[in-house]
């Protein structure tokens, strides 16, 4: 049984069909990329799996349990961590406190009225920050971090819930090219070590072909191709979807205009 199982997921906004009969599975420890041209419905599919958007039809199951109608906070408890396209962090708190906040919630202490929050689960928070390479920045205000580092904080926050599944919506958007590879290498390493399944959307084809075990291609709300990076690169339907934008599918490291 796969970790994440999506069956017949559909959503339309007025007359626009944003997702139609989307079905796929994702295993533990697997890095699965969801790609497609702008407006293909990637974020719609993503938000239906994350719980931000209710689907019109279809089911989402995690470890065999139906989670289609659960709100995001319940999905977190079931083991789904996520990062956002525009990084979302608690900017009034320090870096460590961001992670501590997630740990406090994970341990069900968010309504505790006594005992300072800033000392709770600090060691665990520091070791999570260590894993994403932000140990030195632990006591800096989150608002003072560079954007790429906020993305790392998000990753540490998502990991604080001990997730089985990590959802990353355009994890490298807004980052410098060298930072992108570093963040995805880190994600792949964590996924492999902790047997976490990772579903991510991405526009940067270097990131996709360099890090995804498997790639799903979404066009106008439908999955038109699925396979390994090499198979996808050669798939004529995918080439057609990207309509002459051949460079987008060039081999990683290849010449770019």
């Amino acid at each position: 049984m796969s970790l994440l199982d999506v069956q017949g997921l559909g959503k339309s906004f007025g007359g626009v069909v944003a997702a139609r009969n989307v079905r796929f599975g994702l295993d533990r420890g697997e890095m699965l990329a969801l790609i497609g041209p702008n407006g293909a419905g990637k974020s719609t599919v993503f938000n239906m799996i994350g719980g931000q958007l209710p689907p019109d039809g279809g089911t989402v199951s995690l470890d065999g349990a139906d989670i289609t109608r659960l709100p995001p906070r319940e999905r977190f408890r079931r083991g789904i961590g996520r990062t956002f396209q525009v990084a979302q962090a608690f900017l009034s708190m320090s870096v460590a406190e961001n992670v501590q906040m997630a740990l406090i919630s994970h341990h069900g202490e968010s309504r505790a009225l006594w005992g300072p929050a800033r000392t709770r689960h600090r060691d665990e928070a520091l070791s999570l920050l260590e894993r994403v390479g932000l140990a030195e920045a632990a006591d800096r205000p989150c608002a003072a971090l560079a954007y790429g580092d906020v993305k790392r904080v998000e990753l540490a926050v998502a990991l604080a819930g001990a997730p089985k599944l990590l959802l990353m919506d355009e994890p490298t958007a807004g980052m410098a090219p060298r930072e992108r590879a570093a963040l995805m290498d880190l994600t792949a390493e964590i996924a492999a070590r902790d047997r976490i399944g990772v579903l991510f959307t991405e526009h940067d084809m270097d990131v996709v072909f360099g890090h995804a075990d498997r790639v799903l291609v979404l066009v106008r709300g439908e999955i038109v191709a699925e396979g390994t990076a090499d198979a996808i690169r050669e798939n004529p339907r995918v080439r057609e979807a990207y309509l002459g934008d051949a460079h987008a599918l060039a081999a990683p490291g290849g010449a770019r205009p």
Partner: protein
Amino acid sequence: MDPSFLAVQALSGFASASSLFITACGLTLVFGVTRIVNFAHGSLYMIGAYTGATLVPRLLEWSYGPVPFWAGILASAVIVGLIGILIEVLLLRRIYGAPELFQLLATFGVVLVVQDLVVHVFGPQDILGPRAPGLRAPVEILGRRFPSYELVLIAAGPVVLGLVWLLLRKTRFGVLVRAATQDREMVSALGVNQALLFTGTLFLGAFLAGLGGALQVPRVAANTGMDLSVIAECFVVTVVGGMGSVPGAFLAALVIGQLQAFGILIFPKSTLVVVFLLMAAVLVVRPYGFFGRPEIIGGGHAVGIVSRAPSRATLPLTVALMILLAALPLVADAYLLKVAIEILVFGLFAFSLQLLIGVGGLVSFGHAAFFGLGAYGAALAVKWFGAPMEAALPLGLVLAALGAALIGAFVVRLSGIYLAMLTLAAAQILYAVAFQWVDVTGGDNGIVGVWPSPWANERTVYYLVTLVLTAGAALALMRIIDAPFGYSLRAMRDSEARAEAIGLHIRRHRWLAFTLAGAAAGLTGGLYAFSRGSVDPTLLGIPTSVDALTMLLLGGIQTITGPLVGAGVLHALRDQIMPLTDYWRLLLGLAIIAMVLIFPRGLVGTVQHWREVRA
């Protein structure tokens, strides 16, 4: 039931719906374009009524007839429209980008200024305007007499709706207003002269407020309480109809007019209760009102407390302050002790609001509701059950906590501006209940004879009781702000999406915050009641809510100790300055506006900022 009674009741419902729509339509148009909820809209309505009641009789003296009468009404509306332009140019234009709390406070500053200016210009007494020429005789409807002027009002609502519709659909100005209501940024990107558009919209909005007020001249005497009572009703209309939607305002005004007309059969004491129930029901089903769009208005850039490294000086400083405060009776006379008690009470009151605003980012504009519930709960326990202070204080606290839990259950579904307006409306409803339910609450006179138990009746002892309770509650709240619960509230304020994604139940936390803040405010209300020996409806009024907000603003919204300092400073200033001047509200209003414009960090915030810049 007699059908003729029902018909007349329905007609008078339509008449008040029309008046309400004309005024609320201006508020919703201004909001749609500028994204500012103009608190001073009710003041513009009041100016319209006073101007009409003064101007129209002069015109009628000069030449009696319908033409001078209606010309006078229109002229009053135009005058108010011009005042609207003045407000836009001098104030609003400087705060379009400010957090919504500051916008609301600044426009409330205008409310205070206008209150004193109206008394100065028109005198303190109510002014009853003339009846409309040609419409003095009542008409007969199903054998009952019905004022013919009301029929004109019934027609006026749809006429204004039609004219506004034509203006919005058929003119370039209207196209721009509609475009700005949908996407303000896009309109400015297209090179539209924003300043002119906003000024024009303010003229239109103020004109409608003035018209709404002037049309009341033959019905009710212009009085100084009109501004706040009409603004609360307008808030209900715009929230139920959907912010920025003119047809929504019309529909909501119709429903509310009828509810008020027939609600009198269900709750003879307070028709506003029915209106509130309607609003609660609508918002549960449609959180953005009849025709509002699901969008977050405000709340986007909440200002509030940020993490700071704990200082080692905090504990010794707190202990030293407590010792000083406990030693105060050794040097203070009875008067100073009375002032000190009030400062302690209002300090905790403002601090309990800080839990909602500074920590939770929930801009509550009706915190007086919980202060008043605590005070009335204690006073009612004394009056009706003969309870001693030791029992009455906790009863007041419980009543306030229950009220906060009930109101909170509705308002936590909302955010930003909607939350501010709904909390304000809830407090106004309670105010109306206290005011109108004379048999139980004593109405305007309130309840007297609320004195402490004999052992605490002596001023010094009562001061110490107050000190122990308020300081204890304040320290407990500080712990809560530092505890995971306080951090969770801050997390939701910083990013709802992130908070939800780490498993936090946003509504449940915010509801608990409301209940806690309400309980603390209820304690202060009870203490205040016993310190004065009486309660009255002003404790529940908008000015009491704004007092707390002003203390927050003065002390600094981004600080933990700010509200306590703000309460002390504001109360001391009031104590010194109020006896010297007839224009206290004018001064206070100008001070609030000045603080928003040039001193938004507050006292404690500014000191902190200096120290951080130096470090």
